[in-house]
């Protein structure tokens, strides 16, 4: 598993670094993360790569006090479900924001951060987090 750690990460760089998902030109729907084919149009769909909006609104949030492997030294931290405004939802950590401003409906914007120091595969992973804007 550890031997492929780098490939496991880099194949997802476009998604994690650029918020790159996809868009179906047939039904004009955005998807994040990207999907192999459009679940609405199925084989009639035409998927193209597309970057998602970098701002959104908190739909729900939680403050995590017991973290999983790789995050035990990060606690407590905030996780939120974010509506990107294009009918796509994303789950992300909320960082660099005063606690009292992290609430449902708050506007957030994407930032680029280290996600895990060393994940269970031994690699340092980077990607998106969000902050209250």
């Amino acid at each position, binding site marked *: 598993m550890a031997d492929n750690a780098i490939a496991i990460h880099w194949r*997802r760089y476009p998604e994690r670094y650029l918020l790159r998902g996809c868009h179906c030109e047939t039904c004009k729907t955005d998807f*994040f*993360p990207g999907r192999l084919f459009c679940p609405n149009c199925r084989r009639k769909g035409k998927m193209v790569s597309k970057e998602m909006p970098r701002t959104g609104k908190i*739909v*729900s*949030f*939680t*403050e*995590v*006090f*017991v*973290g*999983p*492997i*790789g*995050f*035990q030294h*990060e606690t407590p*931290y905030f*996780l*939120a*479900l974010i509506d990107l405004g294009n009918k*796509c*939802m*994303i*789950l*992300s*950590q909320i960082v660099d924001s005063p606690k009292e401003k992290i609430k*449902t409906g708050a506007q957030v914007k994407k930032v680029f951060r280290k*996600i*895990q120091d060393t*994940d*269970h595969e031994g690699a340092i*992973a980077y*990607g998106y987090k969000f902050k209250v804007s």
Partner: protein
Amino acid sequence: MRSVSIIGAGQTAFGEHWNESFRDLIGKAGLMALESSGIEGKTIQAIYGGTMASGRFVGQEHIGALIADELGLTPLPATRLEAACASGGVALRNAYISVASGLYDVVAVGGVEKMTEISVEEAGFALGGAGDQETELFHGATFPALYALLARKHMEAFGTTEEQMAQVAVKNHYNAMFNPNAQFHREITIQDVMNSGYVASPLKLLDCSPISDGAATVILCETSKAKKISENAIEILASTQASDSLALTGRKSLTELMATKVAAKLDFEEAHLKPSDIDLAEVHDCFTIAEILAIEDLGFFKKGDGGKATEKGKTSLKGEIPINPSGGLKACGHPVGATGIKQAVEMFFQLNGLAKERQVKDAKIGLTHNVGGSGATAVVHIFKKAQVK
């Protein structure tokens, strides 16, 4: 499709079994179920087993053959099914289909998990596999965190309170006091839950089901034959299953589990029943909010009323619809692969009037509800005492 009944049921105690292996647990539950049915092992024609992550928990895969071997039932066909925490329910449904279809007359179906051999952190990582590894776990989500996101949404949409969620845990701990197979025999108060410390706000330690070892098995038989074999036969009136997006981000609504709603609707149609016909239910309370979502999505209470109904005692042992008389996942314990089968075992006891102090009065029709992950799989079954027409 033919009618199918359960003719025997067995369950190990749920908890920390340091003296017993994965193999011991499923072997014991299997023997108990056979003994309860009164049939000989050689009558069994096929074996089904549910386990979620035995590879991660004990390094053992190939569970179907292991069960057949341990029970001395080789060369029977033996199949493992996996659907995260709904592995047991999905195994039950596939065993049901094998008999309903006419392929077999008698099959055994077990569920097992041995979770305490590894550290709590490693167990949490293994359980995380029930969610989306790339878009949820990668970002630091845990299962309590995913259900906490659903809980917050429910609180903001309907005014559900942390105290109402705590009441689910209080009720289920109370019920477990009367279940000798339960992991916890300790009454708790709302204050105990409120003081137990956040795991992922608004969920606290005592809102969460524990890490457990345990196994459960039932024997299924075509109903006309079942009635001749056992006076305790309980008929499976309906068996349904539905799926949804693996990750929460793919859900159309965050105040319901769509898979539960779909499976329940199909189940009631198949059984020609409505929610008010159900006398008791074992539902998937991996977290207290999950029980509130379940009793709404199954149609026992209006969307948004689950917290209030719980607070008013409507779901207690003597309430209008007793929920989780076994103690549920919260207090009976949650060896994930075993849970869906344990729910059927509880129905076997309840509908036969064998549940002693936790017996639900006039229990004639019961429902079980088993969920995988944060709602990506839901399995619903309805049972009725076979003789009652």
